[in-house]
């Protein structure tokens, strides 16, 4: 009864908050409306929808032993307390994606992103994470690729693997581009990001050799050193001689990140990757908590309108109409296919009781979605004119500050050169014009929030702290992704020549790491030389790829539901699948077929080729134009390949589902047989 009353109150408050958000027009709205709407919707989704899915759709069986209990080896399989698993799982899924995507999508106003983040997660992303986690737990922790192969067939398995590898390469490239753009021409940012590397190595040596395994004390020392690094960057920025040592152009920084990525992938994990993983996890949890408290304390007004004129499709940050591009731009935070890989990776091997999948799968994603809401707030509390000045590439608004402010003011978002200069000065930067990629504008937003909470000082330090924070976990994703990509490539190449598959054979390690790095390094390089900032091309490609991976995961889930006789519940995953298939296909169609050179890859390439041939381009642009033309064509072909793969997987799933529905034989379920849990084990074990 009490549960019902609480539910009704939440529903009323949530509906009121959403109504308030949607109906507020022409006056600033307070950030607390977004927070309230979010909290109500997540709690309602968790208490009612997720509970219903667990009970009816999945028929979670609390008395059934989990793989962690049955196969407990003290290492991979360990029954773990649910809040500890929740922490591990959240730390694994929460990356830079939910921070960057909503920042870019704010060009449509605060409303579209907010609505999609709230409903996309509660009905799509959380459901996907929870159901894949459950299905993997029932199958001894099998990976998404293995489940696709065993439940749908060899084609589904191959598609899941190929899709994973491709999205990984695009993902790393786009994140590396975000970091490079954040450091470009900023000695302070460059120094504080560079400093994280020797700090991580020092911590790695400490925790391996000086005090083996003392992770907590090492992390605390590392955090202090990171803060010293940020302060040191400010000091270096003041010195005329020293600042030149850390002042680099985009291509120089790209070359550095590429070389770094290769080295990080071939040295032992304990030296760099593992210690930085610890530091980034601590930073991430700390900053997210601090941000949540600060937003409630200062409850800022959002200055961005609910909807901007760019919903019609001529947005400066990325091209395309609100449908489907808001759903492509915000992938992580609403639905992220990548999560299905974590949900079918280490997490299912730690689940101590089947009942925990609701908290771990659904709950973690709800929290990640809340992080995305905070990113919306951080982006939209800026003056819209400032937001567009930071996030729009010089190729769109002009390289000259006066031209840029004139263009942006003419869109209806007044901003002045003086205002931008003052802001840059207060943030300790030379300029904040055309700092594309989302990280700098997010850092300005976060710095404003933090400095108003903790006293209006140290704005520049907060800004560079926020940049360092974003860079640290982007670099972690780059290293970890390159390494996993290398393993996948080695596994694949091992089929052709055995030694290449040996993960300990050094020539193969060097070669396969170089191939993966070359893959993302290429996209990074082209993004860096693109005068429009590169993000406008690469981020939609990443969004499409990530949503397609979600479509593959949801196909596997829907196929398994139907095979296990739950056809009438198949809409739980089938609904989100249909929506993702629709938006990705429409987006892919427009990116491939649109005659608008801003939007279509091929028409963009053709338009640039036309300008190049007619000699309309200045010399500097003409020099890079052939590379940009080739890249747009490549991106177009990649989009076509992604779309074809996804539709083949969906068709394969429908084939299996149809056979199952008609009572024809399908591949046997790979579910492990039920074993009752030992009452004594009890699933705590932590």
């Amino acid at each position, binding site marked *: 009864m009490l549960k019902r009353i609480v539910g009704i109150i939440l529903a009323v408050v949530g509906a009121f908050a959403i109504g308030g958000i949607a109906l507020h027009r022409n006056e600033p709205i307070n950030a607390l409306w977004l927070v309230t709407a979010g909290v109500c919707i997540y709690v309602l989704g968790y208490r009612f929808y997720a509970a219903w899915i667990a009970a009816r759709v999945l028929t979670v069986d609390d008395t059934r032993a989990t793989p962690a209990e049955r196969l407990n080896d003290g290492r991979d399989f360990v029954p773990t*307390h649910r809040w500890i698993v929740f922490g591990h799982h959240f730390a*694994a*899924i929460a990356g830079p*994606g939910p921070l960057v995507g909503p920042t870019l999508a704010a060009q449509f106003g605060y409303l579209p992103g907010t609505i999609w983040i709230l409903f996309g997660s509660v009905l799509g992303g959380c459901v996907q994470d929870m159901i894949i986690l459950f299905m993997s737990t029932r199958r001894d922790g099998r990976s998404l690729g293995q489940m696709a192969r065993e439940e749908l067939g060899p084609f589904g398995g191959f598609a899941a693997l190929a899709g994973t590898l491709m999205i990984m390469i695009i993902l790393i490239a786009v994140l590396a581009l975000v970091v490079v753009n954040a450091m470009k021409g900023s000695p302070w940012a460059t120094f504080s990001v560079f400093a994280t590397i020797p700090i991580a190595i020092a911590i790695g040596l400490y925790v391996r050799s000086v005090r*083996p395994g003392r992770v*907590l004390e090492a992390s605390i020392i590392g955090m202090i050193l990171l803060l010293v690094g940020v302060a040191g960057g400010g000091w270096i920025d003041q010195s005329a001689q020293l600042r030149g040592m850390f002042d680099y152009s985009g291509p120089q920084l790209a070359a550095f990140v590429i070389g770094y990525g290769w080295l990080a992938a071939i040295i032992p994990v304990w030296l760099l990757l593992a210690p930085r993983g610890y530091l980034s996890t601590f930073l991430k949890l700390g900053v997210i908590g601090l941000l949540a408290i600060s937003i409630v304390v200062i409850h800022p007004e959002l200055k961005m309108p609910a909807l901007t004129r760019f919903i019609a499709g001529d947005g400066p940050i990325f091209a395309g109409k609100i449908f489907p591009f808001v759903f492509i731009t915000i992938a992580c935070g609403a639905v*992220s296919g990548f*999560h299905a890989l974590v949900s079918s990776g280490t997490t299912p091997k730690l689940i101590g009781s089947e009942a925990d999948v609701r908290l771990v799968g659904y709950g973690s994603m709800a929290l990640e979605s809340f992080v995305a809401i905070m990113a919306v707030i951080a982006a939209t509390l800026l003056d819209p004119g400032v937001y567009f000045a930071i996030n729009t590439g010089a190729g769109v608004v002009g390289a000259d500050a006066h031209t840029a402010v004139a263009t942006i003011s003419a869109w209806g978002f007044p901003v002045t050169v003086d205002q931008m200069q003052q802001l840059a000065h207060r943030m300790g930067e030379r300029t904040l014009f055309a700092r594309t990629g989302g990280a700098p504008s997010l850092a300005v937003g976060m710095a404003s929030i933090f400095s108003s909470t903790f006293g209006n000082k140290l704005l520049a330090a907060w800004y560079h702290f926020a940049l360092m924070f974003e860079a640290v976990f982007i670099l972690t994703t780059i290293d*970890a992704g390159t390494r996993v990509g290398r393993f996948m490539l080695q596994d694949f190449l091992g089929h052709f020549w055995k030694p290449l598959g040996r993960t300990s054979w050094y020539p193969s390690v060097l070669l396969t790491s170089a191939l993966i790095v070359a893959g993302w390094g290429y996209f990074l390089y082209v993004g860096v030389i693109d005068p429009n900032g590169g993000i406008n091309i690469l981020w939609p490609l990443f969004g499409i790829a990530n949503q397609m991976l979600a479509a593959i995961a949801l196909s596997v889930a829907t196929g398994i539901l139907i095979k296990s006789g739950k056809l009438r519940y198949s809409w739980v995953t089938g609904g989100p699948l249909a929506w993702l298939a629709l938006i990705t296909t429409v987006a892919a169609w427009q990116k491939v077929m649109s005659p608008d050179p801003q939007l279509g890859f091929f028409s963009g390439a053709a338009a640039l080729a036309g300008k190049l041939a007619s000699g309309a381009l200045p010399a500097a642009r003409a020099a890079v134009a052939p590379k940009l033309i080739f890249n747009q064509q490549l991106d177009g072909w990649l989009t076509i390949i992604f779309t074809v793969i996804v539709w083949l997987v969906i068709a394969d799933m429908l084939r299996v589902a149809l056979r199952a529905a008609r009572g024809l034989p399908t591949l046997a379920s790979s579910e492990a047989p039920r074993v009752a849990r030992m009452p004594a084990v009890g699933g705590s074990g932590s």
Partner: protein
Amino acid sequence: MTAATAGVVAAWRAGWRALRTLSGDDAYERYLEHQAASHPDLPVLSRRAFYVDEQRRKWGTINRCC
């Protein structure tokens, strides 16, 4: 010690234990416990060897996202 202080101390201890488990600070202790309970006849790894092996295992699979 009053009941309230005892409660605070207990909560603090529980929080500290959770933090150690979450970060992996007590991984070696848990490993030793597991080995003692399940395989008392087998030799155990040293703290350092266990740490290095544990990191290799942890980062050999997808455990970070976008």
